């Protein structure tokens, strides 16, 4: 292979990557920009000040905070089990954890209803105790966890699988306890994976519509999150739906950017 030829091939590869990546960025970017262009910034400011919009935004932020927290709390052990143990049926569990991303969200909502609804498989035992889940804020959080947690679990699992186990082995030879090793050795090393997984799960939960509206319903202040408010607004007034979406995009962009900056600092 001549030197000249390899130069040319490197150059053409660069052009190819540039064209493909550029096209893709435009494909994602133009529709988002179209939303921004359609709405003058003043309109956004007005829409965010409307009490019902503020209420929906507040509910979205509170519910996604709790759903992400619970996803990390329960999802990290799941990721660990899937990455590190050789449980029989582990492959099936891996698929099970991914299933909610394949399921249309409305179907996920129906699944939750026929499980936790008042005549559901589990719900029928809860209602005599005075616990009803549908149409509550707790149901919003549950729907978000159901749909969004796979993003965290799979990212955390990938992080754990790529981690060189010799670090842990070294800690054990120094007589560190498993919990101490996990906290002081494993966690800091997989931190980037955990942060990006939590970011993904949070973003998915923030945009959640189908499962929430099916399982939790739509009531202002209790179950009406931002995406549901956007959906309701689109029924009568497209302009205000676009304004609400831009607000939602701005908030998520801010949070994801903060996470990214936090991650770069951590590294």
């Amino acid at each position: 292979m001549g030197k000249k030829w390899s130069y040319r091939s490197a150059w053409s590869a660069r052009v190819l990557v540039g064209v493909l990546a550029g096209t893709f960025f435009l494909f994602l970017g133009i529709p988002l920009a179209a939303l921004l262009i359609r709405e003058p910034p003043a309109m956004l400011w007005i829409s965010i000040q409307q009490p019902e919009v503020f209420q929906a935004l507040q509910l979205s932020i509170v519910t996604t905070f709790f759903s992400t927290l619970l996803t990390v709390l329960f999802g990290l052990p799941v990721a660990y089990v899937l990455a590190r143990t050789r449980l029989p049926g582990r492959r099936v569990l891996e698929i099970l954890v991914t299933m909610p991303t394949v399921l249309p969200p409305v179907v996920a909502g129906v699944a939750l209803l026929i499980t936790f609804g008042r005549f559901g498989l589990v719900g029928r035992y809860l209602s005599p105790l005075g616990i009803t889940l549908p149409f509550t804020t707790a149901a919003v959080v549950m729907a978000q966890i159901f749909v969004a947690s796979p993003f965290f679990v799979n990212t955390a699992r990938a992080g754990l699988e790529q981690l060189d186990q010799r670090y842990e082995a070294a800690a054990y030879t120094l007589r560190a306890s498993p919990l101490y090793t996990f906290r002081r050795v494993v966690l800091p090393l997989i931190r980037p994976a955990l942060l990006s997984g939590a970011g993904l799960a949070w973003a998915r939960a923030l945009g959640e519509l189908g499962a929430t509206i099916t399982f939790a319903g739509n009531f202002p202040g209790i179950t009406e999150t931002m995406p549901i408010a956007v959906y309701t607004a689109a029924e009568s007034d497209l302009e205000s739906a676009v304004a609400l979406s831009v607000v939602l995009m701005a908030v998520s962009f801010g949070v994801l950017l903060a996470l990214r900056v936090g991650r770069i600092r951590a590294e």
Partner: protein
Amino acid sequence: MKRSLHLFLLLVALCSTVAACGNSSSSSAASTPSSIKINIFAAASLTESFTQIAAAYHQLHPDVTITNNFNGSQLLEQQIANGAPADVFASADMANMMKASNAGLVGDAKVFVKNRLVVIIPVGNPGQIMSLKDLARKGVKIDLEADTVPAGHYSRQALMNMSQSPDFGANYGNSVLANVVSQEENVKAVVQKVQLGEVDAGFVYRTDVTAAVASKVTVLDIPDPFNVIAQYPIAVVKSSANAAAAQSFVDYVLSMAGEGILAKYHFIAVNP
């Protein structure tokens, strides 16, 4: 890992195949090739009745092939405005027909059928609803459509009409609305939640209690003086290449035979 990926891809393929099948909203009523083809753009609530009307019409006119496109009236109006090849437009409300008419897209519109609201209750009757008055009892869980959805708007109007009557009392409407646990985006979502027994009662169109749902819910009628009656207009699309056939189909819908089929699906005939 590789095996699970294979399985996953297989499942994705399966799901998308099923989804694609479920999405096909158009149905052809003909099996033999014919010279004239007309496309009927009809509101989603007309799915069952218009499928049967198309079949009946085709038997009378074997040379005409009918393709139905069912969707929300608002979407149909937008499709026609953007040049979709429609020959007949049947809307579930006057508003969207007016829009099409004002834009010069359709000819004269005629109301061909009416629809009324009812209250449906799950068969187990978990809320112990015996009459409309029970809907105002504290603790009853009620589901209806958001105010932006026509059915939701009509439901609120009907409730306010009832509040005007001494039989129900001035507070009736507000007490019922205070029991609302959710405001759905469409009528079918209300049917779904009532059917599953998650709410004690819901407001829907009479025609939403289809054969598939009838065994799972009980219908409580709202008396006509209080009820809000939805009107369904039909018109020939001006850009139709087969205007004569389209007009003939519209005439059939308005005929005794057409009205008879619609009545079978619990629509209220305009010319009884």
